[in-house]
């Protein structure tokens, strides 16, 4: 089966329980580092890109690019989710459009399978 090498999606960043535990444990803790370098993709997105749990993807936005390990999430097609943390912050919008609030949710992005 031929896989699509890259898809366009919308990025949402947010809290997870393990990310919260990581914050309390310390930002150098394994739990924090591991949780914040994961991206959740829907099953159909993973299928389209030919990905399995734990495979590496490259995600890029107008603001930056980063590499993440993927896991399956209960998400609508076209939406991807990354827990808050420094890797996600390389992709978020730093312009606040006069509100003081950067763009942490709803950011257009590209997801590309990395060669293994």
């Amino acid at each position, binding site marked *: 089966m031929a896989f699509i090498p890259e898809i366009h999606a919308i990025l949402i960043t947010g809290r*997870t329980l393990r990310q*919260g535990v990581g914050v309390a444990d310390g930002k150098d803790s394994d739990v924090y580092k591991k949780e914040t370098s994961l991206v959740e993709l829907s099953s159909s997105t993973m299928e389209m890109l030919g990905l399995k749990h734990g495979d590496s993807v490259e995600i890029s936005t107008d603001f930056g690019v980063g590499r993440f390990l993927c896991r399956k999430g209960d998400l609508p097609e076209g939406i991807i*989710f990354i827990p808050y943390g420094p890797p996600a912050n390389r992709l978020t919008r730093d312009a606040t459009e006069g509100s003081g609030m950067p763009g942490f949710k709803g950011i257009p992005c590209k997801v590309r399978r990395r060669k293994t």
Partner: protein
Amino acid sequence: MRRLENIVCSFCGSLCDDIVLEIEGNTISKVRGGCAISRSKFLSPIDNEVPLVDGKEVDFSEALDAAVEILAKARHPLIYGLSSAGSEAQAAAVKLGETLGASIDSTSSVCHGPGTVAKQLVGLSTCTLGEVKNRADVVVFWGCNPVEAHPRHFSRYSVQAKGLNTEGGRRDRRIIVADVRRTATAKAADIFLQVEPNGDFQVLTALRAVLSGNELRGDTFGGISRDEILNTSSVLQDAEYGVFFFGMGLTMTRGTHYNVQQALSLVHDLNEKTAFTVIPMRGHGNVAGAETVLTWQTGYPFGINFSRGYPRYGPGEFTVTDLLCREEVDAALVVASDPAATLPARAGEYLGKIPTIVIDPNYSATAKFARVFLPSAPIGVAASGTAYRMDQVPLPLKKVIDSKYPTDCDILLAIDKGVVECFAYKVALSMTH
């Protein structure tokens, strides 16, 4: 072994005040009643850090002097963070901000700040979490995920909690969740509205339109079908006592404060038909306190500048992301917060280009590139103080063990004293020449 009851956990805005701690010597050995995050918070070792200047270990007083020197020399310093500090430290930070003519902002600007702007426009019909527990039969969670971010919110206050008029707990409540993702919170809902990304304003507008007797034209609104809108609107109106919690799914998406303005207006409209209240689902333990203290001290909740000698308010101008991305500040003092790990990368990286001072019980990502690191006693563990719960109820945080370091409040007051002395010396010097 000492056993302490009714201790407040200050990690998140729920401020659960029923934690039981067992203490052996000067170490917390057991945490009962808390969630996984709370256990990590209380069981983390303290006093593991040392004061640093340029990455080298120094005496505390030397680090303090270096901090004073940086701030006294700065033309436009920024004071940022404060949401995990006690309210006494927050007040001390305002005092220092005024002395310095600094900009002062809390993490509010990157979480619920837009909600606060909306609150200033619409007003807030609100209540305490005690009322939610005892009275709420319809509970809305819009763009928030308490199951993961406030793990005990459901059981203590909003969903399973049993109260005077809600003896059946979960059975006596209808739960509505609106989110882009089917989160763990959404899985517990009676009605789940799976909103399109950036579609919240449309959904809220459609709900308001139906409530005010208008006919909907169109089939879907922000990803929600007409039938779902009609059904949700009737559940909202049928509430005996409804509560609307909202989170960053509204404040961080396109429209920011307009989304929240629409949500607060929806609650306002619902009060024409029944009793409805709204509570912002605040994240950090004392971010509500940061807004409260800054407001009572300066008149404004966040994004404040003292450079003219009096406070000016400017979301988008004096807020942390804008000040750092525009490279407008020449020194930063970060209190109990980790902007390098939480702000967009460009903003965080600028902190590495200017002299940055960090006051924190833990060696954070920001501390790694800070010029000065001052370890402090962790609030609610080795320092006492006050924190405001998400419903604005102030609760006392207890000191349960000892730290060798001062509290962040004492450190801020010491820096302020040092800066005042520096400024007085400069004036005296200029008069002799």
